[in-house]
């Protein structure tokens, strides 16, 4: 059976990881390659490297980093941040990334999705969607019948758009994206679990895999997003970086609960 995936996300600034300095046994704290290798050895199924540098110089550093990651890491990795056009995608894929994640650029120019799919194949195109539930449904989490009104946001959650989550996700699917990475802004950082009601509606209505993001606080939250949210993969950052949830224990826990997982 296809395994549910566990994906640590690493934020990169000027070639170094921003979080993750508490991670065990690293020779150099903040080294994205060391951290990625450590996660890989612990059983992470994929990695996401997100470039949060804004400058042009920083972007060049990030591309050089991607080249090094590709040489060292033997599991798939996705890169995102600052991708605005096809040339950015080509540069990062040539450097050795397996997939690219686009967010604001897709909202501004949806045909970028079609272009990436046509030039490089759907499998490389992850569309990240940041959305916020604008009515108070956070307490109905888990009830698939109540999913509220969700609006998509751009520029790291700073700009609200007119797009609704579900119609945008459907369009992304139909334009040829390979995966949707959905972050609930209501759940992100709160550590009370993933937005499973919305995730379930997404997963059941799309033909491509859905990655859950935002809200991981306990091992049970991962279980719940796979079972209740029908998520195909779950992404988290701080619970892994600060060692709150060690990946080997998480995967053993999920396996014991009957979730299909790669041990």
């Amino acid at each position, binding site marked *: 059976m296809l*395994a549910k995936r566990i994906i640590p996300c690493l934020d990169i600034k000027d070639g170094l990881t921003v979080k993750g300095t508490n991670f065990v046994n690293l020779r150099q704290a903040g080294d994205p390659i060391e951290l990625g290798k450590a996660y890989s050895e612990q059983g992470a199924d994929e990695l996401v490297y997100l470039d949060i540098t804004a400058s042009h110089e920083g972007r060049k550093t990030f591309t050089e980093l991607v080249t090094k990651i590709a040489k060292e890491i033997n599991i798939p990795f996705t890169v995102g941040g600052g991708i605005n056009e096809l040339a950015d995608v080509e540069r990062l894929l040539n450097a050795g990334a397996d997939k690219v994640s686009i967010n604001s650029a897709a909202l501004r120019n949806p045909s970028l999705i079609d272009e990436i799919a046509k030039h490089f194949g759907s499998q490389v195109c992850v569309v990240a969607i940041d959305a916020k539930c604008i009515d108070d449904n956070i307490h109905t989490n888990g009830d698939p019948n109540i999913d509220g009104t969700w609006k998509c946001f751009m520029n790291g959650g700073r700009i609200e758009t007119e797009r609704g989550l579900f119609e945008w996700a459907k369009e992304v699917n139909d334009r040829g994206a390979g995966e949707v990475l959905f972050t609930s802004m209501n759940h992100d950082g709160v550590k009370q679990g993933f937005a499973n009601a919305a995730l379930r509606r997404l997963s059941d209505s799309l033909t491509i895999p859905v990655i859950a993001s935002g809200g991981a606080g306990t091992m049970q939250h991962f279980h719940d997003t796979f079972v209740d949210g029908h998520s195909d993969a779950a992404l988290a950052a701080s619970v892994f970086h600060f060692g709150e949830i060690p990946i080997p224990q998480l995967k053993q826990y999920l396996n014991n609960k009957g979730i299909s997982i790669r041990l």
Partner: protein
Amino acid sequence: MKVAIVKYNAGNIRSVVNAIERLGYEPVLTDDPEELRSADKVIFPGQGEASTTMAYLREHGLDKVIMSLKQPVLGICIGMQLLCRHSEEYDTECLGIFDVDVKRFIASSHEYKVPQMGWNNICDYKSQLYKNFTKPEYVYFVHSFYVPLCEHTIATTDYIQPYSSSLHKDNFYATQFHPEKSGSVGERILRNFLEL
């Protein structure tokens, strides 16, 4: 030992170069017929779409070069599908090394997304490519088309239905999954191939 990797218009080829380098070899990435013919091992990798990759191979005469190879050849992902007879992806005639046709996955519920993307089990090993493999192992897949079970099947995976995750005929070996992205299990498979 000389390891050649076929250079053509498919994606993901750099990953295979990196993986072979991690095993301590120095592969050459080439579309030169003589370099390919003189290599000890040839890898035919890639991600992509069947009709455009097949058209490129024909245009550059690489179809005939690949079919004429006598040393061990390993097709990966689209490389495996192109070694089959025909693909349902844009109704494409392929190289016909393996006497089997490539079919499209039909998703039946939310549990079965297409493409299949992620880690799934391989089992039922029938080749030296899986030397010292004794139990099902997880490897990384990304594909929307599949090869049904057939006489050339040397490993099986279950997604929607059981299908061929690996093939072997004469000097041609192939994997639907990406050994170069499959962690230590993938490295064991690549090493087995290089030691054939």
